[in-house]
């Protein structure tokens, strides 16, 4: 008889749709095939070239090991950040949670099964990040059988600790969030708190690395022999054992380090199960219920029931659902608000990288280049906005409502674009605040940004909706699947990154003055946005009509 943990894990895995990349429409298949055909070779080429360049540069300093150490630490930090949102969504907001609670299983078994499911998803990310690093290092330094074996073990183990830490953090916070009748609100606030707690944690970890003077750094570089690892290892301390094992892949020192790393990972998993057994149920039971109804006095209908324009009402409803659904808020709304806030906080806190960037931009870059790089940054940030790439998908089984209401499809699509656009513009406000505060922008440049800065949000909003119209994910049983396991978000991010790179590189190469740059960039964005809008209102509207939900 299989253990309940294993049975539960397998059932959850079978019930999930993997990475959520199974397209249901012919257009979806075409988009997926095209993206994979272009994306995979492009990704391999870009990452391998970059890692090779880094390796060759570090070779001169005799610091090639930094590549492994930095790669593992960076991957761990990234996985820690991502795991918090995953855990909040999967452990607490997923619809299947309700169906697990009445089964005769222990809380640690539910937590364990959920953990292993999330882990399976994270292996995809881990491989994507680490394979180029480990592959290039191995190829350049001469593969050995043990190196390959150790690499496989490290890839299998590395997401465990960050995910366990993220899970413990979330379980701890949710234990205290499940007390109020305003459960949706508290769930959302708890999710936000958990994300910020992880940011603080990662900042603290990196602070250890910052506490080193320039003289010490120079000394370390002068020593050679991978001495810089002492710094990179501090980014995520436990990754050091994994790095040591890969840098010395033998049956002595290397094996010991690998075993220590494995032990730490497994102990962290064990601790999570122990923690889950004690706190998970208190955080999750009753969470899906909304607080008891008030028997409130009758509404004053003279103010509560008033006619408005359909477009405004539709838009307001979209925004209400985005803000009130915890999974949508965390994945779609918060991403717009979090980057500007982090940038401002980092700038105020005097983060070295921001100060260096500010200094370079002030001294070296002309106003034209500043404008193009700002627009490139805005395009990239808005590309991470998951609102319009999931605008149709989020309708799920209720999509039919949008088919029978007597509202022109083009107006419905406009309202959906506006929901992404309005929230996307917060990135502009954040960037402007940062730029005005720290870069001492000239009035002409600030005015150019105000005039042009909203265009990236318009472009990415239309593009995201266009993708979702042709490849919507309407079959889902938990809200998190509509947004988290939705490839349309990734497609939009990839396309935005390409536009961002083109604008940034174009501005850098051409090095035009402010006015020509503003005119060229404005024309470029207006042209692309108009094209996307045209496609949304013609082909996209036709796709909307043919969708049957």
């Amino acid at each position: 008889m299989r253990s309940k943990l294993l049975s539960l894990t397998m059932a959850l895995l079978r019930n999930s749709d993997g990475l959520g990349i199974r397209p249901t429409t012919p257009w979806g298949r075409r988009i997926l095939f095209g993206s994979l055909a272009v994306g995979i070779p492009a990704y391999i080429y870009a990452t391998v070239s970059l890692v090779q360049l880094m390796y060759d540069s570090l070779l001169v300093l005799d610091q090639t090991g930094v590549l492994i150490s930095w790669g593992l630490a960076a991957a761990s930090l990234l996985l820690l950040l991502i795991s918090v949102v995953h855990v909040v969504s999967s452990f607490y907001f997923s619809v299947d949670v309700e169906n697990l609670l009445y089964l005769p299983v222990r809380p640690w078994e539910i937590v364990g099964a959920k953990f292993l499911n999330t882990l399976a998803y994270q292996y995809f990310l881990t491989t994507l990040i680490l394979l180029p690093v480990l592959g290039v290092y191995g190829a350049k330094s001469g593969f050995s059988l043990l190196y390959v074996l150790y690499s496989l073990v490290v890839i299998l183990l590395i997401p465990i600790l960050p995910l366990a830490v993220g899970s413990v953090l979330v379980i701890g916070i949710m234990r205290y969030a499940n007390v109020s009748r305003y459960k949706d609100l508290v769930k959302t606030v708890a999710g936000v708190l958990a994300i910020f707690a992880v940011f603080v944690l990662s900042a603290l970890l990196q602070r250890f690395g910052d506490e080193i003077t320039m003289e010490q750094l120079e000394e370390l570089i002068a020593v050679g022999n991978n001495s810089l690892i002492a710094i990179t290892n501090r980014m995520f301390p436990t990754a050091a054992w994994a790095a040591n094992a890969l840098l010395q892949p033998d049956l002595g020192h290397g094996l010991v380090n690998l075993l220590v790393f494995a032990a730490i990972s497994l102990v962290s998993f064990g601790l999570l199960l122990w923690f889950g057994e004690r706190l998970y149920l208190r955080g999750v039971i009753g969470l899906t219920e909304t607080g008891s109804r008030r028997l409130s006095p009758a509404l004053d209908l003279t103010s509560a029931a008033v006619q408005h324009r359909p477009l405004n009402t539709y838009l307001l409803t979209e925004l209400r659902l985005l803000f009130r659904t915890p999974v949508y808020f965390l994945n779609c709304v918060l991403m717009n608000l979090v980057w500007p806030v982090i940038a401002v906080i980092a700038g105020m806190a005097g983060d070295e990288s921001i100060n260096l960037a500010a200094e370079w931009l002030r001294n070296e870059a002309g106003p034209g280049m500043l404008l193009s790089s700002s627009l490139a940054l805005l395009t990239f940030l808005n590309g991470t906005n998951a609102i319009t790439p999931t605008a149709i998908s989020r309708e799920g089984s209720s999509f039919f409502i949008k088919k029978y209401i007597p509202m022109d499809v083009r107006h419905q699509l406009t309202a959906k674009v506006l929901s992404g656009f309005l929230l996307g513009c917060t990135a502009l406000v954040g960037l402007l605040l940062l730029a005005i505060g720290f870069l001492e922008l000239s009035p002409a440049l600030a005015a150019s940004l105000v005039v042009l800065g909203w265009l990236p949000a318009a472009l990415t909003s239309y593009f995201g909706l266009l993708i979702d119209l042709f490849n919507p994910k309407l079959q889902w049983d938990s809200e998190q699947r509509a947004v988290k396991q939705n490839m349309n978000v990734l497609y939009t991010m990839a396309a935005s990154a390409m536009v961002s790179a083109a604008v940034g590189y174009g501005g850098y190469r051409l090095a035009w003055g402010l006015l020509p740059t503003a005119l060229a960039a404005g024309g470029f964005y207006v042209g692309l946005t108009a094209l996307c809008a045209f496609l949304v209102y013609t082909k996209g509207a036709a796709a909307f009509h043919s969708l049957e939900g």
Partner: protein
Amino acid sequence: MLELTGLHKTYGKSVKAVDDLDLTVNKGEIFGFIGPNGAGKTTTIKMITGIINPDSGSIKVNGISLNADPLGAKQQIGFVPDTPSMFLRLKGIEYLNFMGDMYSVSTADRQARIEHLAKEFDLTRVLADPIQSYSHGMRQKIIVIGVLLHQPPVWIMDEPMTGLDPRSSFTLKQMMREHADLGNTVFFSTHVLEVAEKLCTRVAIINKGRILFCGGMESMREHFRTHASLENIFLELTSDAE
């Protein structure tokens, strides 16, 4: 008035959900659409409401072609779906305002109708609460209120009695009667044959996408030369067609 002519709908390449369906439902009628699971009832209703497109055939709602003027035709319809779990994170009043704005209901009309209908269904004191906190029956009732806000000339319901308590079920049946008496069309699918038998002016029995019988209860009994209940006739018809 509803006029369906030569409606076809096939899923995949071979599953005929609706097969050459002709049907006319007149003003002032309460029309029951009955059939076993998978007979094509919901598919037909989805085609009438514009949710899915027929492969061929035409649909006219009060003389307005759904194909030629979809918005005009949809404006004539009020639709109560079979599942009331929608807009759960909106408050009751927010959902009603959404429906009111979609169907261009003036402020004065919506205030009067919300007040009247919420009182009828005993929802007045929960309008400010999220729909998520409502029971299944309450969700069904708030949806019915939203649908009736624009006093639709054609009121379509898919299994409307499911989840309603006896009092609400009685209220709904009364409303259907009143709505039809005002010269409107009421069209609903149901499994509850007793409701159809007592309430409907005419019924249609559908199985495997084809209408097996359409007419009033009396003409049905004459047609089948029996005094059996609708239930018995239904069972006989649908088992013959197996």
